[in-house]
């Protein structure tokens, strides 16, 4: 039983936190509002210098063995700290791109792109994408032939500044989908900055006109594309988790400091209990995020459930934390100077970038209940099959069939 950060992972987390904080913490993110550069070059240089960019591609650039394990928990720990400080660096964007290439790309594509992403010489991004991308009404760029894209992308996190983007596009003939790698530095790519709710982060949209692109071959299989989305939301859920904890910390600090009616407002039971509930939501989400990242770490099929669970849980926790934190700050929280609104804004962008919770709940449930009428509870056994080597889970399954209600 070892279901927590190890000492080394905790140290990594503390280190990342200290470096971001020494650089100015949230003030650093705030200075991105209206800034000319898409991200904070100095802070990103420190990420590269410390070698943290190498975690964007946990399995390593040259991996020939898909089931080799390691590094995902470290990625989660770093991403959590990025979320906590709203750190204006393309760590998450590059991780998402790297995951897509790792899971959907050919060996040749991996060795072409992953070393650059890992060293930080290249910055990548993955277009906003949700499980309903398969809906035929979904507006996507289209592919002509094997290697040309036309059309406009969904929002690209750090799209202005990123070197490459992974974008979904409709394959010419059958209406099938796939993910393409596009070099955004190409002359025929037009990048337009997007104004968004999330003022401390830069987003853009790319317009392609017969732009050269390469299909990530495996991503044309729906199953693999789903897996890429699931991996993406697990990584993103750590950012939500960090942001939620920042909100809790901020709210507790303020409640301990701010005096009204003759005492710190944090001594009033209504606030104490509100904050305790916030803590509970975050802890449950953390547990689900840990499980999510452990399925990535073990290349487990259980990711198809664990990704959605981490996603829904972390979105809910951050929504609660960001909303209540702002509320606890009262009138001060409603000002532009207070940081509370920055988290409320980030909360929405993080949630909606991969589709809202309605679609994720539906996705989760359809996966749980996918196996025919009488077989609804097959979800469990299906999960267990995929974890065949995992003795503990198998036992869990036996216990489950025992049942709480008899």
């Amino acid at each position: 039983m070892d279901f927590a950060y190890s000492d080394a992972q905790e140290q990594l987390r503390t280190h990342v936190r200290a470096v971001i904080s020494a650089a100015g913490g949230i003030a650093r993110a705030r200075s991105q509002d209206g800034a000319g550069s898409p991200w904070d070059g100095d802070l990103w240089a420190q990420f590269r210098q410390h070698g943290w960019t190498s975690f964007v591609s946990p399995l390593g650039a040259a991996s020939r063995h898909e089931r080799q394990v390691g590094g995902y928990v470290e990625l989660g720990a770093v991403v959590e700290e990025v979320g906590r400080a709203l750190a204006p660096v393309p760590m998450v964007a590059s991780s998402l791109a790297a995951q897509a290439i790792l899971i959907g790309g050919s060996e040749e594509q991996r060795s072409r792109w992953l070393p650059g992403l890992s060293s930080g010489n290249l910055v990548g991004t993955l277009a906003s994408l949700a499980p309903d991308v398969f809906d035929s009404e979904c507006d996507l760029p289209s592919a002509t032939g094997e290697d040309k894209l036309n059309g406009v992308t969904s929002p690209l996190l750090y799209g202005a500044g990123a070197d490459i983007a992974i974008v979904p596009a409709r394959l010419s003939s059958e209406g099938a989908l796939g993910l393409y790698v596009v070099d955004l530095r190409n002359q025929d790519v037009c990048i337009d900055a997007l104004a968004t709710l999330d003022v401390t982060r830069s987003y853009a949209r790319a317009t392609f006109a017969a732009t050269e692109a390469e299909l990530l071959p495996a991503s044309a299989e729906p199953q693999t594309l789903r897996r890429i989305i699931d991996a993406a939301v697990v990584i993103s859920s750590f950012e939500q988790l960090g942001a939620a904890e920042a909100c809790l910390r901020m709210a507790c600090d303020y409640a301990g400091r701010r005096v009204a009616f003759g005492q710190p407002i944090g001594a009033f039971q209504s606030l104490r209990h509100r904050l305790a509930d916030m803590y509970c939501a975050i802890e449950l989400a953390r547990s689900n995020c840990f499980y999510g990242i452990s399925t990535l770490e073990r290349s487990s099929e259980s990711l198809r459930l664990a990704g959605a669970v981490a996603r829904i849980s972390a979105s809910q926790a951050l929504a609660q934390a960001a909303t209540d934190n702002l509320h606890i700050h009262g009138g001060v929280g409603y000002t532009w100077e207070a940081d509370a609104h920055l988290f409320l804004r980030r909360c929405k962008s993080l949630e909606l970038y991969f589709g809202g919770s309605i679609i994720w709940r539906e996705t989760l449930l359809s996966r749980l209940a996918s196996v025919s009428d009488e077989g609804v509870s097959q979800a469990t056994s299906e999960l267990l099959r995929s974890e065949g080597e995992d003795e503990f889970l198998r036992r869990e399954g036996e216990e489950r069939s025992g049942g709480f209600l008899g």
Partner: protein
Amino acid sequence: MDFSDSPQEAAFRQEVRSWLDTNAGLLNLTSESGSSILAVTPMVVESARAWQAQKAANRWAFIGWPEEYGGRNASAVQQLIWDQEEGRSAVPANMFTIDYLAGMTLATHGTVSQRKQFMPRMLDGSDIWAMLFTERAAGSDLAGIRTGAVRDGDGWRVRGEKSWIWCAEYADWGTLLVRTDWDVPKHRGLTYFLLDMRSPGITISPLREMTGSEQFGRVTFDEVYVPDSLRVGEVGQGWQIAVTQLMHDRLWIGSGHGGWGGRPDAMFDRLLRLASSTRTGGQAALEDRGVRQRLADFYVELEGLRFTGYRMMTLLGRGEDPGPEASVTKLALGNIMQDIANFALELLGPKGFVSGTDELDSDAWQFAFLEAPAIRIGGGPDEIQRNIIADRVLKLPAERRADKDVPFHAVPSDIG
């Protein structure tokens, strides 16, 4: 990050399992259907005694106790492994929970002769113990109890009433917390005794719970004599001793046993099955978008609880105290069980309130619905758990308390 057993844990689990496989089968017991708590009947009590004796004979009883008292000094994780494995067989495991807790308390605070007199009989199932702490006047404010004891020669006379006492009518002995000084603030005037439940002046009456069953009792004391030799700790030190016992209780409940919905995750499968067998709006409930959204949220919360349990086990394994995490799971579990039971009855529609047909397991869901409030109330209600989190984890400023530093006789009470 991984929640499988370490090699040592796996070996221990194997050892436990093979002993249980050989021995647990010797008992033939069925638990009352629908209940997460084993309903206590004389037959259950006898089987429980036999099982406890059998464990004791093989040094599997109370493995968390120190070795000198017959335990194995087992770590919290080993204890949990034992409980998980034992929980898989239909053995009456919880009957001696208070024995375990009282023994841990005696091991810390008892005299040598008290340990010698009581611990062997706890271990082998000779005596069943009850915890006589809570009462109507106090409830969540445990230190506000009003059952009192006054000096009488070389002993004490106890007067008052304890309520919600689990297994009261079967208990041979009890751990008793009473007020011995009314002129000091509430925590400082309490004393802890060991009480023979057959002492003259004790009346035990069943307490009928809202589920209709009677697993708890009410115990009244009419000038009940307790010799001073059965006092544990100093006069006025009772609160610290009770806290030792409750701390072991919290670890016990928090690490996943303690009766309350031992396996909440199994509930989801049942709920999903129910949603596929009931109809709403002219289609299977499972096809309804609103139903699906709720079901997904339940699954997410149950998974969160399950994995939080693994995180607690990890902390235990590292020798850390998972106190606050136990509050999180207690709080979340009570609420989700209540929500799920409500939702299940809603899925059942009009069948949901008709009892005795047991169509679609409706009786079991109704029992879950009736039992759910207890999960949120017993062992410190939601509000107390939130206070624990606010104080101990979030370190928020303390709440003002009207009874702080006030002699207890001046603290107002709602009865008497």
